């Protein structure tokens, strides 16, 4: 085979064909279509919601009407508080547990770790009946704490951080100990800074999971006081008393906006974080 032939072959080999490009674009357009349609409807007066004219007037009134029609401000506040609370507790608990698993020899370690891993399969999302009973017994129904409690100890976070901590060179650990640092100081000064990318990755995954979580919050809340955005949106859009589509779509986009904007701004970090979180 001559070199010229190889070169052309390799060029052809490396470049996706026109057909590939076409198919990829077609799929992407199909994928973005429902969203684009929602954006169109939300930003135009309702008479244009199913009429596509290039010069249709733009408006923000759908958003302001949706905002006034339901206590979305409260829902936003609830969701924000919920997401921050869950993440903060998850990080503290998982850091301590992961450190114990990674750097301590103790009796029952393997059994304890196996027990942690159980949660990766039997997740709180399924055990709603029993967890509801527990919350009722504790008198916590319809509180933000009740939504968060089953998720505070995250097996996923413990697993992820343990893997990371295991990769930290023991010499660093020993050097810090020689200088007289206690175990928690070592954790704080040596391990946590080295695991920063993993913390970011887990934080993004956790925040988007709990921002979007629906079933458990639906079950355990019954008033505006604790209802997060997802449940609020469902309550708002299922009251079909002639609420028109433009307003529902506006409300829908509004509730997804913070995550969507964050995603568009930090696309690279998002994608990398999800990658990192998925790789064992």
């Amino acid at each position, binding site marked *: 085979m001559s070199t010229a032939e190889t070169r052309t*072959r390799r060029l052809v*080999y*490396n*470049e*996706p064909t026109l057909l*590939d490009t076409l*198919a*990829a*674009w077609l*799929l*992407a*357009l199909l*994928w*973005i*279509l429902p969203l684009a*349609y*929602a954006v169109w409807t939300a930003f135009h007066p309702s008479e244009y*919601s199913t009429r596509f004219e290039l010069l249709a007037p733009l408006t923000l009134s759908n958003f302001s009407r949706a905002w006034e029609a339901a206590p979305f401000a409260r829902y936003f506040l609830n969701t924000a508080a919920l997401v921050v609370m869950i993440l903060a507790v998850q990080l503290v*608990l998982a850091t*301590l*547990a992961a450190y*114990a698993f990674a750097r*301590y*020899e*103790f*009796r029952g370690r393997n059994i*304890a770790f196996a*027990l*942690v891993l*159980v949660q990766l*399969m*039997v*997740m*709180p999302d399924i*055990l709603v*009946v029993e967890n*509801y*009973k527990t919350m009722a017994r504790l008198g916590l129904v319809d509180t933000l704490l009740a939504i968060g409690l089953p998720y*505070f*100890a995250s*097996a996923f976070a*413990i697993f992820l951080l343990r893997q990371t901590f295991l990769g930290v060179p023991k010499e660093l650990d020993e050097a810090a100990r020689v200088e007289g640092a206690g175990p928690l100081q070592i954790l704080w000064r040596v391990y946590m800074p080295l695991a920063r990318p993993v913390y970011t990755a887990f934080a993004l995954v956790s925040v*988007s999971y709990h921002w*979007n979580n629906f*079933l458990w919050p639906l079950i355990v809340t019954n008033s505006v006081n604790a209802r997060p*955005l*997802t449940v609020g*949106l*469902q309550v708002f*859009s299922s009251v079909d008393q002639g609420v028109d589509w433009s307003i529902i779509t506006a409300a*829908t986009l509004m509730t997804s906006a913070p*995550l*969507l904007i964050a*995603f568009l701004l930090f*696309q690279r970090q*998002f994608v990398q974080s*999800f*990658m990192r979180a998925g*790789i*064992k």
Partner: protein
Amino acid sequence: MKQRSVHAWLMLLPAMLLLVAFTHWPAVSTFIDSFHSTPRGARPSVWVGLENYQVMTQDPVFWKAVRNNLIFAAATIPASIGLALAMALWVNERMAGRAFLRMAYFTPTVLPMIAVANIWLFFYTPQYGLLERFTGMLGLPAHNWLGSPSTALGAVTAVAIWKEAGFFMIFYLAALQSLNPSLREAAAIEGASRGYFFRRVLWPLLMPTTLFVLINACINAFRMVDHLFVLTRGGPDNASILLLYHLYEVGFSFWDTAYASAITVVLVLVLAAIALFQFFVLDRRVHYK
């Protein structure tokens, strides 16, 4: 040494307590409750043996949910994995508008399922929805996609695939980017066709990723029900009901918590089976790096 052991347990304790309280204990007590009756008013719960499971075997809605869930799984798992792989292969190439493509594929993943369902509800709406207008343009008869038993399950399945594929794409993309570029050069020099290169080189190397994604897709097939609340509520006539949604209805609409516990046990067993399959079959065969 003893002291270090105490330290370790102290650090473990808060997480362990919460795990026991909200994962292990509920799993065990669900099992126990499934052999008892539902307490109603002054009547406390009593041991009824297998009665809840007998009710289950005679509950047509339960069987409908099982059947639907299996169809849902059989459709979403291969479709979302296949699409994810195609997306990743495309986005990994130097293709025109690659950044846009990646964004378009991944965006559904960051949206709440409830919001997604609202958007799709509008998309599927009879007469006004985009889908109807499109099929209308092609001269096809009007059809209520969510309202007719023959298409409701298909319609909610499509939404799930749309939501999931971009998520799985990420893992394939990560795997593809970690592959050694010389593999490809070698294949080009050898004159291997694209199909051959994919079959004999890429696909085997991507196997660990495929299995990881497969497990996640299996779990999701039994966990994803949020969209049903908006799109169909399991209807019409339970045509699109899934197991977890049935569990919700039994437990929190009819408040038959004992029977709901029995359904939970079935779901836990399904998930445990997936876990055991992963542990004993897959992890033995696949050698992670």
